[in-house]
């Protein structure tokens, strides 16, 4: 069962990676600075989690969780900016692509920063559940 927890984490990371590439390469949306930082955290997960699956290692939590946490933190910050919960003047991205440019809005509220946050959150929760299951076994 634990195997599937890591498998689904990997699947979410894969979908997030391919999805972000779809936005930038196929739909030609230029990624903003904060999006790049989140990509830096998301892309390696597709390989790290895969390595953790064959064979399943409990260390996969140790290796991947810090990256997820960093990505999640940037994502939270990005969403707070995006939904104007903190003012943009505090943003590090004053030149180039604005981090609050809206490219998509599905069903009225689903945006690219929100998708990223959902991905990081899902992976984080799956990894935490995995860790708990593993420690219970002992």
């Amino acid at each position, binding site marked *: 069962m634990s195997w599937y927890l890591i498998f689904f984490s*990997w699947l979410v990371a894969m979908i997030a990676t*391919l999805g972000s590439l*779809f936005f930038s390469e*196929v739909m030609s949306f230029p990624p903003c600075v904060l999006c790049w930082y989140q990509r830096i955290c998301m892309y390696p997960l597709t390989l790290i989690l895969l390595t953790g*699956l064959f064979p399943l290692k409990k260390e996969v939590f140790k290796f991947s969780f810090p990256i997820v946490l960093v990505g999640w933190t940037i994502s939270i910050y990005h969403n707070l900016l995006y939904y104007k919960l903190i003012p943009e003047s505090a943003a590090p991205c004053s030149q180039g692509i604005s981090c609050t440019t809206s490219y998509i809005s599905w069903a009225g509220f689903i945006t690219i920063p929100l998708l990223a946050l959902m991905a990081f959150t899902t992976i984080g929760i799956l990894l935490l559940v995995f860790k708990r299951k593993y420690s219970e076994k002992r």
Partner: protein
Amino acid sequence: MRKDKLIVTASVAALIIGFVLLAWMYQDKQSKKLETARLQNESNLDRSHSPSLGPANAKVTLVEFMDPECESCRAFYPFVKKIMADNEGQIRLVIRYTLFHGNSELAASLLEASRLQGKFWQTLEYFFEYQPQWGSHHNPRPELLWEYLPKIGLDVDQLKKDLQNPVIAKNIATDAVDGNLLGVRQTPSFFINGKPLKEFGYQQLKSAIEMEIQK
């Protein structure tokens, strides 16, 4: 194959196929959208304000969206001239501006002002010839353009007066809007009797024009 490996392999395959399929569908949709926009704006392709060369009743109207500061436009210009010469009297060339570079707006304004003195083509050829100097990417020197003008035989005082004419700015702005609506994303972009040149290249342009002449 073990079950876990099978699941992962199948997922990878499904994700990649899904990605490619979606990308293909998206691009197909986009190109259809572009085509519709182009058809809706077809009447804006050949405007009376644009500089043109060749007889008004020529069999082929070749519209070129270009930028005097664009290297490919410079490189392509002799080919266009050669095709015009090889098919004398059969082609009418219409020049429209799609300005992507730092000083292209100045160059285009100067070209338009030189047109009022009947020296558009001479000025365009001169600007193209010396483009590596005034339009260098590392060290652009737009001030050089002013030095060229007397050498082309233009009355610089008159030209400075003409530059104030709001029609020049208006025509350049119209070209930008039309180019955008017609789906021009790169320079040079050619339209042969209203049809866009799908695949860019000298040979492709040549055969597209020859096909229209033979019609």
